[in-house]
């Protein structure tokens, strides 16, 4: 029995059929291949997915089976999601760049019987850990390099589709449509493994209802329609990509474009000019850096024009974007700036048609955030989790702040626990962790509240601010809140500061270690005739200390303005004589500070921060890149920093 046209779709395969009727001739997917954009309309995509799905059934895929999916953002891997779901089986996307063992863990935990992968690289990984795995059949997209492989359990997608086509000819489409129509919203849609910075990855089970509701609320919030164009370039296994490039595309009916390759994303984005765009802060940072570097090489006239209009944009751009009053002269100048600078710049970055852009994942530097907004780009922040089907909070148009993550998304309730941890409840909340009842109960309470593991608070306007991981948040002796990462991030937004470690839990006051950024401070030194012979010498230079002191003071002033954080202003700081390095075990391989290790290694320096001394002699063992060990010694200066009374800020603001 075919799905009746008036029935509201509840699963993505049902949406696929509905879209093929509603938007049959509209593009559903584009992919640049062999230098040309290939496109598929919703009707064509339905045919492809139906073939693929029937082919998988022919290979023996059964309802409830798990199917691992790994590879780059390619149409056929996105189709794989829907083809698998249409049979009542469950896709389990896996990070394609993860090493074989990590991939093996996820696949064997999920008990996946099938794998649909992009190419030889993924096939090799699966085969290298082969014996221990539950995988019975591997389906691949690109056959290159696979010619000499044992073909027994290896199938090309093309061949699978041919099998599907044969089955379609044999028995018609009715049985398939019946299976699709029989699925319910409460069925399991997908299992997404969280990256697992702490412990083993956990399989987050999301139902169709979770994803459809989350997708719908996001669509309503930003008034998205079938006319949007997005570019899919983030990992398939990440919930953000799954919701933006898959769930929302099916629910709203908009077109998803796949880049030609990972290296061409910047070019592809310029060609496509997405109307709805999502990126972690890193992407925006890199784009801005690339532009600034190129502007340094530009001619005098161009450079002067750029500087002039960018300065003007900074002054009025955000106000215009938010619809606040701006004088006519300023508007005219902004309009002129748009023709001369902002427009070409947006075109260069591929943002010409961007209506809504989001950044999420981690904190974005306020300067970077404001830069894009001053160009007239509607860039916003959101806060989300895999367990919530992304949306927890988002910034509504016209209420954008660089340092908050916005208001609760539609349908989401939020409360702050006594410990400072953020809890939420929404229809998007996950079903549970796969085969991990213990973790499910620890994260999700019986009445549906989910622990985020993040500490935060609501500011005066009702916007949520995330300050740190809940476990890292501590208290000073006087009881005021101490959120190390919040303070560290504020300092790290200064380009001159590379790394920060804040101390304060159970202490009288907050003190920090700073690491200078050699590139940035080095180029400053060059421009200002500061001579230095080594990293150590530059780090200890009095003028560098002055610069660092100014940064710390600015951060203190900032902290003083926030009720919750005013107590944790920085009283003392020092600039470390060596760069924190993963080779020495001070950072993780992903460049995150290993707090406890540093506390142990630099114990004498920490004591010096709190015993009032003005300097301290230390010897530190270092590991060179070739593995040899050596020692460096230095006398590190420690400075006091004035703190600001919360009231001082209030008065300043009132003036």
């Amino acid at each position, binding site marked *: 029995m075919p799905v009746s046209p008036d029935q509201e779709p509840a699963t993505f395969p049902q949406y696929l059929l509905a879209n093929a009727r509603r938007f049959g001739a509209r593009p559903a997917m584009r992919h640049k291949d*062999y230098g*040309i954009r290939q496109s598929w309309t919703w009707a064509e995509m339905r045919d492809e997915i139906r073939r693929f799905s029937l082919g998988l059934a022919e290979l023996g895929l059964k309802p409830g089976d798990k199917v691992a999916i790994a590879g780059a953002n390619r149409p056929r891997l996105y189709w794989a999601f829907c083809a698998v779901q249409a049979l009542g089986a469950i896709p389990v996307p896996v990070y394609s760049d993860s090493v074989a063992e990590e991939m093996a863990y996820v696949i064997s935990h999920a008990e996946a019987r099938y794998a649909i992968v992009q190419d030889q690289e993924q096939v090799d990984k699966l085969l290298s850990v082969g014996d221990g795995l539950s995988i019975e059949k591997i389906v691949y997209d690109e056959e*290159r390099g696979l*010619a000499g492989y044992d073909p027994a359990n290896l199938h090309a997608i093309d061949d699978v589709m041919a099998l599907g086509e044969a089955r379609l000819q044999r028995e018609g489409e009715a049985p398939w449509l019946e299976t699709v129509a029989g699925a319910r919203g409460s069925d399991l849609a997908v299992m997404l493994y969280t990256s697992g910075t702490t412990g083993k990855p956990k399989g987050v089970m999301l139902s169709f209802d979770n994803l459809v509701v989350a997708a719908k609320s996001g669509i309503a919030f930003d008034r998205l329609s079938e006319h949007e164009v997005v570019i899919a370039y983030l990992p398939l296994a990440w919930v953000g990509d799954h919701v933006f490039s898959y769930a929302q595309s099916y629910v709203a009916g908009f077109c998803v474009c796949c880049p030609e390759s990972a290296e061409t994303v910047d070019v592809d984005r310029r060609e496509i000019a997405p109307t709805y765009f999502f990126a972690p802060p890193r992407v925006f940072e890199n784009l801005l850096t690339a532009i600034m570097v190129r502007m340094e090489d530009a001619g005098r006239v161009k450079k002067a024009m750029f500087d002039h209009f960018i300065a003007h944009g900074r002054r009025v751009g955000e106000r215009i974007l938010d619809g606040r009053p701006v004088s006519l002269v300023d508007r005219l100048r902004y309009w002129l700036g748009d023709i001369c600078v902002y427009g070409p710049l947006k075109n260069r970055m591929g943002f010409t048609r961007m209506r809504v852009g989001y950044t999420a994942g981690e904190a974005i530097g306020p300067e970077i955030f404001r830069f894009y907004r001053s160009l007239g780009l509607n860039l916003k922040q959101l806060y989300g989790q895999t367990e919530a089907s992304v949306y927890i909070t988002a910034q509504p148009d016209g209420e954008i702040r660089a340092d908050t993550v916005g208001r609760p998304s539609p349908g989401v309730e939020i409360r702050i626990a006594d410990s400072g941890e953020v809890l939420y409840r929404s229809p998007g909340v996950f079903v549970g962790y796969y085969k991990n009842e213990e973790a499910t109960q620890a994260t999700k309470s019986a009445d549906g509240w989910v622990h985020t593991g993040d500490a935060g608070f609501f500011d005066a306007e009702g916007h949520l601010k995330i300050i740190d991981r809940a476990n890292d948040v501590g208290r000073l002796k006087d009881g005021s809140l101490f959120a190390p990462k919040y303070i560290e991030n504020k300092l790290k937004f200064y380009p001159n500061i590379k790394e920060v470690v804040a101390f304060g839990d159970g202490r009288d006051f907050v003190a920090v270690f700073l690491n200078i950024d050699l590139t940035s401070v080095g180029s400053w030194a060059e421009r200002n005739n500061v001579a230095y012979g080594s990293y150590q010498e530059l780090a200890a230079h009095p003028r560098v200390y002055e610069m660092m002191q100014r940064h710390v003071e600015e951060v203190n002033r900032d902290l003083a303005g926030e009720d919750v954080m005013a107590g944790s202003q920085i009283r003392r700081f020092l600039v470390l004589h060596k760069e924190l390095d993963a080779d020495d075990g001070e950072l993780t391989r992903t460049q995150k500070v290993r707090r406890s290790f540093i506390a142990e290694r630099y114990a004498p320096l920490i004591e010096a921060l709190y015993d009032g001394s003005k300097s301290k002699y230390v010897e530190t063992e270092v590991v060179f890149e070739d593995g040899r060990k050596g020692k460096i010694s230095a006398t590190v200066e420690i400075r006091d920093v004035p703190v600001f009374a919360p009231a001082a800020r209030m008065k300043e603001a009132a003036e």
Partner: protein
Amino acid sequence: MNVHAARQGVFGAARSEDGIARGEPLLVVDNISLAFGGVKAITDVSFDIVKGEIRAIIGPNGAGKTSMLNVINGFYHPQQGTITFRGRSRRRMQPHEAAMQGIARTFQNIALFKGMTTLDNIMTGRITLMKRNMLWQALWHGPAEAEEIAHREAVERIIDFLEIEHIRKVPVGRLPYGLQKRVELGRALAAEPALLLLDEPMAGMNLEEKEDMSRFILDVNRDYGTTIALIEHDMGVVMDLSDRVVVLDYGRKIGDGTPDEVRNNQAVIDAYLGVAHD
């Protein structure tokens, strides 16, 4: 149109119907001697390259390896000996004739058009396959246009194969060395060669670039059956990649066989360790 659907070989089959089966000699070098005035570059060298194999030519500096490649593709004319390619013997041949017969090569020192883009450079590799004359191509309408589109598609397949989409429109002179080498390989592949000559494809590359290049060479050979002769100094690469190795020293052949045989050949070991010659 969906290009995916057309699953044909990247390099087509234009020149594979020569009646030579896999494993049969594609090229036979017989008693070749080459001298420049009094300097003997190659003396009485004979070996063969069978269809479908990767054949390495190794030897110390000045052993005559590049001269040998130059003889094979008609750039040098040997004073003595014959070369039989696809069953046809010849003494004198011009390089363009070799190209027309299906021999393509890359060079030790990259020889690309620096000011042209990657795409255009690879397009030049198609020149021997273009049927319309210059006048037609200048008009660029009708049959010439259709032909250009077909060639462009073949070139795009090579770009896809070599994973150089991101530099398609970048002038080659601006590219790093490793990528230029890859573009040069692309141009050689564009000619759909029956025999591909690679002169030190990995010289000056770092480990990662070498691994990439090795993979491309293997894939060209395995997936499309192109016969390859390569000169390379990195012994690890040579031993891994090649089916058979011929060793030259002072213009003479001192070893020929599988990598293992060559590795254990005393003359080869002496040549590489530098034993004094009488």
